[in-house]
């Protein structure tokens, strides 16, 4: 069985798109082949800056012939129906077969799908793939209308077996398939003719192209580590950067250079960010001091001077970049030590959102809210307010203007330099957290206060101007902010009454709507922790649902209870009681809320249920007021057997109206007691 080699050779493909493009190529081609009946043994895809390649081994020579039978209209059906059937099947009437069925004579069509040669199928699938390739962004070039990520220059499409190799003929807008490609753009640009994947990969390597991105990345990482190690240093790991750099070169050459002494005093994060963002350099640190002392750059070629010219050029560019960074750092430090108020004042000229005022106004609100929240999180109000006022000062700094991703971190450095208290300085960095579901949650009380205040101000603000997230659109990351509040409260075990906080933060916000947004986020959060959504709903329906800690405690206890035999049966019993009661109440047009009286009880089971209610009611009430939901659940468990026994033996609708009403009032007592723990009507099952 033959093997297939495909190469799509183009101008430089953006590094960030290469990996997915290789995967897409493999999926689209193999799916298309299989759909046409052309199966294969194995497939692998590769990418370099200038090419996507795919090898498929063990391809069928041709797709198998298949016969399909289709049942048509009855014999004697109107001509129109028969013609329609013939059109669909692609047959003529004399090709139909009449068969007797229990419903009478029916036409049957037997359609044979002739097998097709592999080359024909592959050519079609490849052309279709090229024309519909899912690039994140694609373009036209020259006079053509074909779209590709950058101009596409040549196509290899080759079937090969022991007997030799043959080009699969294909012409996509004038690009004709062949069996040639090119080596490294500078080191060996000559044309290469290949006769199969192994030959292709080997010839490329001789022409200074490493086809496999993983191999390039490994080579870069190994060499970088070794060069650093030889100097007693360590490369700072950065998997994203490694992947990107491996996508920028076909022939990686690792070069290590020095960072001029002048810049070694910069914070390591500044060095790292500047080198990574602008130059795609790795940082190399001294493990003894933690300082970043050198950089690693990856060139795309070897040179006669072993990269000396290239390294010198890179060093020069870095020098200019770091001169800028140092200039910013020194200016910023001067400002910070002098008085950070010039930064906070400057924020009054910066719009946060045109309907929500300036950054300075926003900071005023956050400061007031942080004060308000200070007792809740257990910190000093003055300290929380101070921290809130300084938390965003670094947005005016030159460094953050240049490197927005350093916001917060620079704030901490500058606040420390200004002699602020450590907790205040830490809050400048930590109040942005948590940034995602897996990001660490701050625990220092001042940081927690500012972080909560920041997020709640943002949420209530956008709710007040009716800019809520819709569908997949959440431009202000409000879902993330709400999840942040939830995690800050729960993971630090704080009690926050949300409705009161919302009202304080922004009275114009629709607090009830915002609370239900929080409940939705909470459901997602709890579902990931294994709590069922209907269980959460049963707890959200209770009073005090704006106290997230309380809500979660209740939900966790209920979830555990519902997993027990008692829980499951109590739920059934409760539902039965509730159904009967609701039905009778509706029928009678009254609400049975008098309370049952044991003296009208007739059977033992009835009396036992009264006794159980009397026993468990104070237990459950005490447990609830102590917020001890586990005990409340075991109180409910105590009701399960008597309820089951009651329904087993007692007919609620007695002919004696007094007895009937008393039984309905008893059920109402049960409903009320159970309903004080959770709204079980919302639990499924």
């Amino acid at each position, binding site marked *: 069985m033959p093997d297939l080699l495909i190469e799509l050779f183009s101008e430089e493909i953006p590094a960030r798109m290469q990996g997915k493009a290789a995967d897409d190529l493999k999926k689209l081609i193999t799916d298309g082949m299989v759909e046409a009946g052309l199966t294969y043994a194995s497939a692998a895809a590769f990418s370099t800056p200038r090419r996507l390649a795919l090898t498929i081994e063990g391809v069928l020579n041709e797709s198998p012939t298949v016969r399909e039978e289709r049942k048509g209209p009855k014999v004697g059906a109107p001509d129109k129906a028969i013609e329609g059937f013939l059109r669909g099947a692609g047959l003529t009437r004399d090709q139909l077969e009449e068969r007797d069925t229990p419903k009478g004579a029916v036409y049957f069509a037997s359609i044979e799908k002739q097998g097709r040669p592999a080359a024909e199928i592959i050519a079609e699938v490849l052309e279709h793939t090229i024309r519909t390739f899912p690039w994140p962004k694609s373009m036209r070039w*020259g006079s053509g209308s074909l779209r590709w990520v950058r101009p596409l220059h040549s196509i290899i499409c080759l079937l090969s077996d022991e007997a030799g190799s043959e080009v699969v003929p294909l012409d996509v807008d004038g690009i004709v398939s062949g069996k040639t490609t090119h080596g490294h753009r500078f080191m060996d640009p000559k044309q290469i003719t290949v006769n199969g994947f192994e030959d292709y990969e080997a010839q490329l390597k001789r022409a200074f192209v490493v086809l496999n991105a993983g191999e390039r990345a490994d080579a870069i990482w190994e060499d970088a580590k070794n060069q650093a190690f030889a100097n007693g240093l360590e490369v700072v790991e950065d998997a994203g950067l490694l992947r990107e750099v491996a996508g920028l070169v076909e022939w990686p050459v690792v070069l290590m250079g020095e960072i001029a002494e002048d810049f070694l005093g910069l914070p390591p994060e500044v060095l790292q960010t500047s080198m990574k963002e602008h130059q795609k350099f790795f940082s190399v640190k001294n493990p003894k001091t933690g300082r970043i002392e050198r950089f690693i750059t990856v060139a795309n070629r070897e040179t006669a001077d072993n990269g000396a010219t*290239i390294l010198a050029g890179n060093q020069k560019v870095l020098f200019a970049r770091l001169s800028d960074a140092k200039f910013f750092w020194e200016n910023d430090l001067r400002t910070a030590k002098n008085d950070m108020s010039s930064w906070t004042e400057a924020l009054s000229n910066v719009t946060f959102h045109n309907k929500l005022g300036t950054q300075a106004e926003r900071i005023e609100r956050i400061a007031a809210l942080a004060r308000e929240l200070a007792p809740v999180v257990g910190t000093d109000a003055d300290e929380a307010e101070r921290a809130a006022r300084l938390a965003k000062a670094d947005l005016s700094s030159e460094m953050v203007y240049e490197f927005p991703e350093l916001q917060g971190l620079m704030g901490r450095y500058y606040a420390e330099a200004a002699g602020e208290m450590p907790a205040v300085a830490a809050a400048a960095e930590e109040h942005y957290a948590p940034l995602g579901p897996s990001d660490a949650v701050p625990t220092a009380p001042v940081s927690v206060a500012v972080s909560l205040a920041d997020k709640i101000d943002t949420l209530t603000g956008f709710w007040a101007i009716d800019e809520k997230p819709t569908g997949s659109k959440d431009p202000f990351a409000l879902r993330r902010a709400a999840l942040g509040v939830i995690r800050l409260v729960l993971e630090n075990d704080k009690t926050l009454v949300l409705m009161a906080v919302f009202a304080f933060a922004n009275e114009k916000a629709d607090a009830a709507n915002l609370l239900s947004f929080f409940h939705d986020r909470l459901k997602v959060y709890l579902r990931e922790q294994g709590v069922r959504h209907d269980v959460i709903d049963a707890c959200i329906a209770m009073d005090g649902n704006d106290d997230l800690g309380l809500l979660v405690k209740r939900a966790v206890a209920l979830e555990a209870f519902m997993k027990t035999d008692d829980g499951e049966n109590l739920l059934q019993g409760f539902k039965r009681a509730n159904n009967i009661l609701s039905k009778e109440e509706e029928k009678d047009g009254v609400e049975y809320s008098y309370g049952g009286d044991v003296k009208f009880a007739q059977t033992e089971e009835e009396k036992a249920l009264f006794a159980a209610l009397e026993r468990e009611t104070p237990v459950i009430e005490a447990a609830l007021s102590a917020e001890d939901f586990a005990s409340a659940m075991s109180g409910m468990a105590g009701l399960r057997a008597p309820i089951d026994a009651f329904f087993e033996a007692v007919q609620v609708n007695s002919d004696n109206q007094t007895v009937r009403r008393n039984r309905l009032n008893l059920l109402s007592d049960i409903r009320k007691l159970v309903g004080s723990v959770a709204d079980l009507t919302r639990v499924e099952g």
Partner: protein
Amino acid sequence: MTSEKPKSFQEIILRLQAYWAAQGCAVMQPYDMEVGAGTFHPATTLRSLGSKPWAAAYVQPSRRPTDGRYGENPNRLQHYYQYQVVIKPSPPDLQALYLGSLEAIGVDMEMHDIRFVEDDWESPTLGAWGLGWEVWCDGMEVSQFTYFQQVGGHDCAPVAGELTYGLERLAMYILDCDHVMDMPYNDPQSPIALSYGDVFKQTEEEYARWNFDVANTEVLLRHFEEAEAECAHILAQEHDDPKTGKRIIMAHPAYDQCIKASHIFNLLDARGVISVTERQAYIGRVRTLAKACADAFVQTRAGGHVQ
């Protein structure tokens, strides 16, 4: 093939002119108006529209008032030069042609590391975008390489390939200068050797002061409005000229007003009188002009209109 290293800023420009002339480009002169980048020259913006083939290369003095540093920053200038090449339809070997131009100005491909790094270009004021790269030489960006997809809201068909060289930065690298003002403007062996600073240090100071502190913002605001109004006035005219009886659509004069408005906006920005929210509005107004000019141009002969 390694050519001898150039000796001066002007020699690099002259070599680029000779190289692109040899590739068949019409070597044009700078546009005689203040623009922010070589792309604004009608030889690029307008000529990248429509079906007619086009190939041009030129130096374009460019002004970015906010980048002024009184001539003190080693590589920031409010007035600098771009070298611009635009070829429509983009030839299949445009990358090779570009690399040839680097060799022509003394970059030895055997010793340097040239890379094409993703960089998509967009000009919100021109309503234009394209895909391409910034070209790195040993980690330094030396050019922008773009395949135009849309200009003035019109799809580019055929597609124009555009190359933009930041001349000062490129020359500083080739001539190994650390400060732009120290760079030799003419051959240092000349009887009167001139550095870049000899030619431009004083003007950088003068313009920086004017741009940042003196330019009369009221007058500028009025000029902006006037340019906007004149652009609309020009485009509102009948296509058939009543005097000559010819069909004359005045796309270029209208586009001049668009360029003018764009530069005035940049000046106002440097004076710090445009707030963040207003910024977007001004950019939108210039884009509206650019689109109207593009709409007009595609109805002209040069824009591929067939009567």
